[in-house]
């Protein structure tokens, strides 16, 4: 893989830019691989990269029904943070955050990681108690988190409205300074380029139509481009986790809902951090292009259409206007949706299954993007060793039977 650098840019420029390598190959599927990852989003490509880089498994493929990053990886609001309540969550999201910090350098690809700070606001005394509890829990787990009162919130984020005149005024909030945003496409492309350079075959426009087993063990997959034999199949398809599991009659507690987001017209820099509010429900940041990137809760109905209903958007806008009346003249430019696989405890599933050789990573619901490198890293470990490590183990599917749920609806900060 030719390293990207200023020197390389100059060198290639002198040659009319005809010497650049393809960022990833377009290989024909081999008849067999040592492992196949279903799902070419951030989590899937990260899994492939770590399998190849850390476990020496380079004879592997990523199978993607559409184009890489075309699912939820291309549809999220790019928020990065690790300020969840419980020890198990702090472990995985902070693992991801630590990987995010060096990822651009490691992949030699600009992922536009911006550690600009994430504010989670409180609007009543109950929320204040909950958020202060979370600050202390975070600190015990090595997650950087601090409590700000309303004036300090305004100091950190000047464009926010802390007036007492609104229905639910801002009373304060938590701040994770190392949280922020990044470029979701850049992350997908960075992982794809690095994995491809290590020998991973990325098979786009290739849909898995069935999973083959013999005596309760995986032997391969059926795809729209033929049969592929493999002893290890790892499903990491946001939005289609149940569809994959249903191929093997594996029951999951997952429900797939639309999650919408939208961007405003581009404006000069006005919002310097990420602002999230549970009670006045909206979350917002400003992209480097100048657009406000806005999101809120899921649509209530199950749907695989990547579309939602307008009343959700109307509620988001009402909340945004309460917190930022300064944005009331902005035109909204583009709106879209994804499919989020929601678990009853708002925590993911990273698990072996009753079928030997079939692994599931899904159910991240509304909070998958921030976990991308951590998810890929521990999932690769699980696939390579056929055992979950300390970070992945609490997210096994049997927690719904044992009752060991990791209940993170509050910290998830997205209405369900």
């Amino acid at each position, binding site marked *: 893989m030719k390293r990207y650098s200023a020197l390389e840019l100059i060198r290639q420029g002198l040659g009319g830019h005809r010497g650049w390598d393809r960022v990833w190959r377009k290989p024909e599927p081999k008849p067999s691989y040592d492992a196949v990852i279903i799902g070419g989003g951030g989590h899937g490509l990260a899994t492939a990269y770590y399998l190849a880089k850390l476990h020496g498994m380079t004879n592997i493929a990523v199978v993607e*029904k*559409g*184009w890489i990053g*075309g699912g939820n990886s291309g549809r999220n609001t790019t928020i990065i943070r690790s300020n969840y309540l419980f020890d198990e969550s702090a472990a995985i999201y902070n693992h991801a955050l630590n990987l995010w910090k060096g990822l651009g350098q490691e992949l030699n690809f600009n992922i536009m990681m911006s550690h600009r700070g994430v504010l989670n606001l409180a609007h009543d005394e109950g929320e204040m108690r909950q958020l202060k509890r979370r600050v202390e829990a975070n600190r015990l787990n090595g997650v950087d988190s601090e409590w700000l009162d309303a004036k300090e919130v305004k100091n950190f984020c000047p464009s926010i409205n802390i007036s007492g005149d609104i229905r639910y005024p801002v009373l304060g909030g938590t701040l994770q300074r190392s949280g922020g945003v990044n470029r979701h496409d850049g992350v997908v492309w960075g992982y794809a380029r690095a994995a491809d350079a290590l020998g991973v075959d990325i098979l*786009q*426009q290739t*849909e*898995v*139509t*069935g999973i083959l087993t013999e005596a309760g063990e995986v032997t391969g997959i059926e795809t*729209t481009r033929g049969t592929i034999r493999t002893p290890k199949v790892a499903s990491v*398809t946001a939005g*289609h986790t*149940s*569809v*994959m599991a*249903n*191929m093997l009659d594996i*029951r*999951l*507690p*997952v*429900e*797939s809902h639309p999650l919408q987001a939208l961007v405003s017209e581009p404006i000069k820099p006005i919002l310097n951090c990420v602002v999230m509010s549970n009670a006045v429900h909206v979350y917002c940041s400003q992209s480097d292009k100048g657009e406000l990137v806005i999101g809120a809760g899921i649509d*209530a*109905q*199950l*749907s*695989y*259409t*990547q*579309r939602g*209903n*307008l*009343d959700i958007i109307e509620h988001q806008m009402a909340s945004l206007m309460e917190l930022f009346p300064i944005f009331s003249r902005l035109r909204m430019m583009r709106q879209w949706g994804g499919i989020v696989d929601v678990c*009853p405890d708002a925590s993911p599933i990273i698990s072996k299954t009753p079928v030997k050789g079939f692994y599931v990573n899904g159910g991240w619901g509304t909070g998958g993007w921030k976990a991308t490198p951590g998810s890929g890293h521990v999932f690769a470990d699980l696939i390579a060793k056929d055992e979950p490590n300390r970070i992945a183990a609490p997210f096994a599917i049997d927690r*719904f*039977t*044992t*009752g060991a749920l990791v209940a993170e609806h509050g910290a998830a900060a997205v209405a369900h």
Partner: protein
Amino acid sequence: MFVIDCPNCGSRDQSEFTYAGEAHIARPTETENMTDAEWAEFVFMRTNTKGLFAERWWHATGCRKFFNMLRNTATDEIHAVYRIGEKPPKVTANLPATPAGEASIGSGNDAVKIMTRDEEAAS
């Protein structure tokens, strides 16, 4: 936006209704004899169908009654509304030809736009 035909009130906007999840899940009667796995199956496990799906709604800002609906979750087309206690009717729906196949309109994923007209009776 959906328009939903409430069996009691007629056609109303979807925002008047509250979603109530997968239909036809009967609460078990002898719960004290159930294993943890059987209880988890009732409380948590869901089919989450991509395609023809039987679900419940209730009319929150109207009659406030529950009813069942047959909707294609791959296209959002509503095929039938029927009362609690009734069985889902037979309908013809545009279903994905492959497990993760997508609707011919509304989805940006050009690689998997394969729909087929299918006769389907929801179970």
